């Protein structure tokens, strides 16, 4: 299987990473060599194998729904890239 330029552009759109034409070509090459290496998995028959998502044998725990952090607006907004004391600011979305 080969990953062509069109696929690279499609994935970059899905991943929300803009990519220049030249870099896309280089990336296509890298991805192809990585996927060549990954294709090795097809040698294995796995029809009857149960997938393993996590090693931890715990089921997700329930906890009581209580408020633990209060009045932390300042903390939460502290690292926002655009200064505003009440909100996160983004480019205009609605005309």
């Amino acid at each position, binding site marked *: 299987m080969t990953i062509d330029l069109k696929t690279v552009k499609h994935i970059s759109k899905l991943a929300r990473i803009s990519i220049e034409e030249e870099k896309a070509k280089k990336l296509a090459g890298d991805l192809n060599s990585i996927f060549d290496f990954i294709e090795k998995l097809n040698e294995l028959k*796995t029809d009857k194998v149960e997938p393993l998502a996590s090693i931890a044998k715990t089921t997700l725990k329930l906890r009581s729904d209580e408020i633990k952090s209060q009045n932390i607006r300042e903390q939460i907004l502290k690292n926002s890239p655009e200064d505003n004391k009440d909100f996160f600011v983004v480019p205009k979305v609605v005309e």
Partner: protein
Amino acid sequence: MTDVLNLTLVELVEKIKKKDLSSKEITKAYVERSEKSKKLNTYITEDFKNALKKADNFDNSPDFDKKLPGIPIAVKDLFCTKNLRTTAGSKILENFVPTYESTVTNNIWNEGAILLGKLNCDEFAMGSSNETSFFGNVQSPIGEKLVPGGSSGGSASALAAKLTPTTIGTDTGGSIRQPASFTGTVGLKPTYGSCSRYGIVAFASSLDQAGPMTRDVKDCALLFGVISSYDNKDSTSINFKRKNYLKELSKSMKGKKIGIPKEYRLKDMPKEIEKLWQKGIAIAKDSGAEIVDVSLPNTNYALPTYYIVAPAEASSNLARYDGVKYGFRANGKNLIDMYEKTRSEGFGNEVKRRIMIGTYVLSSGYYDAYYLKAQKVRRLIKNDFDEVYKKVDAILTPSTPSSAFKIGEKTDDPVSMYLNDIFTVPINLAGLPAISIPAGHDEKGYPLGLQIIGKAFDEQNILNIAYSLEQEIKFKNKMNDWWM
């Protein structure tokens, strides 16, 4: 002063408790040496002034019941530290100052230790040579222009160069053990669920574990006992009885069944690695261990599995970096354009590459063929270990398929870089604990490590085996202070 720098963590704790040394004397020695070692580029953020202040405070009202009383420690810059910049080696977090502390570092400060600063690492811990960091390469104290390994490269380099008495790293596919092996130091990747992931910048959540990086096995047992804890804030943290690993540390090789997996004998593996492995086997045998040939038949499929699972998890973990709530933001014509430019400019090439792999294997039409397939093979790899552990107590292998390489040597070929982790990745997939200890040198004088893999939650056992081997090997790093 050099004496202070040459003491192990356990020795420093003893000296402080006996009042032979003050926290200030120790902290000052490490700050001074760190100041003179900028050429190695180990620190991303220094906190020396505060460290000296905290050392004074400790000396004024010391608490000698703590496990790390007044000990200065620098940590990998993947651990969130309250009010001190945490970058994960990325431009996108260049100015991020956490308002909370990771559980693992919190455990360390609660035992009396003092933060020296934040150590360089591969961007989002994605790399095996510390060359993907936005903050530049780290050089290994072992040799000029030599990589310290990665992703915990700054930690390994600072530890080996004696810029910190001890340190912690994180290990997703070998990021503690490979740099430990490259720098002649000890590194432990604990069982998944043993150390809390809370407050560690996430890479691949089903694989990430924090662990100690230390000068010897004793130090490793001490520090592991401090950082391992059950934590409600991490949904995969496991509640089991933690031991006093240092107190229970003993040379115990007699009667131990040590497995030697034939699949780790690679066709084109350098002779010196095979020789090192044989040396380890001989020592174990002489110390009374029973050597058992075992097979982990799916070993060859571990790396391809890892390069689906880890990028898939990373692509979803890193979706949070969108330039809105925190981190770097680039200007865009509209919201989508802003997202795309922020992520394009904020992430480095390796991180982008892995996000792309992850996005692809999770995308519609490819999920079953790649991601689900990898999860199934992951099960087979775990089953291999389960089978072998019916017959043996631990497994002994080399830590890496080669010694450290030069900066720039492998950057053009991602697959050859990935192959570095061939002996460490299967352990993360299976969630097992493994320790790398320095065991010898190659012909250039670069360190080489041996890896001891244990059963889940059997850290005490592999620490004991490592301790036995260490006593016989008597490893010494060949290092002059060339960078000073």
